[in-house]
């Protein structure tokens, strides 16, 4: 696992060091958005599994050539009785920009994992002798390590001073479904506006 991390950090570094074509658009430091996605996972017995998801995202534009995308999406349907969410953190490294700087194509590399939340109400299990076992209600939150590598491309287009649209296509490799493909669409709001 450590080797995997080193590999993709190195790749990310090399790509980040390469200048993007076109002019450097001045993106806001923060972009807040929302995404909807569909994921097809091929790591299941009996065929592919398909889930859909939607949730918020945050982009931190560290430099004109490096951004960090953080996203969380509630996904379903799943076998879990509670709430399941996908979280993802990735680097977005621009590889091409339009002449007017409004359209950007980026290479993305990152990692994804799952979050689970569920709550159970108190249950009472009667026994034959008139006694009973009472299980108190509880809540559980669990987060898995982001052991799934996410590689892909993302296209962002600024459509107004404060709004941009996004499209992403990624391949997941790892514990989250084995091999999976995720396609997403979304909208982002630039804090302070796009210039």
């Amino acid at each position, binding site marked *: 696992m450590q080797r995997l991390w080193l590999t993709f950090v190195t790749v990310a570094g090399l790509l980040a060091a390469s200048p993007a074509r076109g002019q450097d658009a001045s993106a806001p430091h923060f972009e807040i958005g929302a995404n909807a996605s569909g994921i097809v996972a091929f790591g299941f017995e009996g065929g592919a599994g398909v889930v859909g998801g939607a949730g918020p995202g945050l982009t931190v534009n560290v430099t004109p050539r490096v951004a960090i995308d953080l996203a969380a999406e509630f996904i379903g349907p799943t076998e879990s009785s509670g709430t399941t969410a996908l979280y993802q953190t990735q680097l977005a490294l621009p590889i091409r920009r339009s002449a007017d700087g409004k359209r950007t194509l980026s290479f993305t590399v990152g990692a994804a994992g799952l979050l689970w939340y569920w709550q159970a109400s108190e249950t009472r299990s009667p026994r*034959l002798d008139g*006694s009973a076992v009472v299980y108190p209600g509880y*809540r*559980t939150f669990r987060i898995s390590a982001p052991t799934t590598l996410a590689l892909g491309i993302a296209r962002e287009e600024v459509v107004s001073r404060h709004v941009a649209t996004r499209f992403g296509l990624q391949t997941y490799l790892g514990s989250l479904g084995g091999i999976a493909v995720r396609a997403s669409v979304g909208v982002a709001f630039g804090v302070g506006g796009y210039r």
Partner: protein
Amino acid sequence: MTVPILPVLLLALLTAACEIGGRPPGVVVPGPAVPSPFPTAPPYVWDTAEELAVWMNNSVARGSFALEGSGTDAFIRIERADRDWLLRGPDLQPAAEAVLTVRLRYRWRPDPDVPPTASLTTRVSAFFETTTAVNEDATAQAHLSSNLSPRDDWTDVELRPQGQFKPPIGVEYCYVQSYGANRGVLEIDRIELVR
């Protein structure tokens, strides 16, 4: 350009999985107590009419019982062995230590209308409320069970431990039960905790 430190730190922080909350252990709510009018010190044998009556005449016991005979010849007659029944033993104070199993002296006469090709046994279980945990579930009761073959004369049977229960174990009280199966008459002449 060097590899940005912030993204790497963020990614590293997210490599740790965690869990908050979780199912709390169950709590046993005791059922009705069954005090013994006799000392329950060793040898933990119930043979006389008075002793056997303790198993029948309490708020937990259920079934179509009749106490027949007197003295040590007395026995509990279960007319409808095809229906659910339960005999609850007295609370043992102090608890019986190092108990291996329950030995029943019984007669089992299936109804003549039961087809000879059918199974003619009747299944009887015993449960111990124990002084120590039976398995990783601290609320579990020790379970013993056996199929009783048809017998016209008094026969002793020692019920076999089931599941993860590994005797010997301390016992606070015991109850004997069946969900019923074949029609017939089951008679119990003697109940003994074997140590």
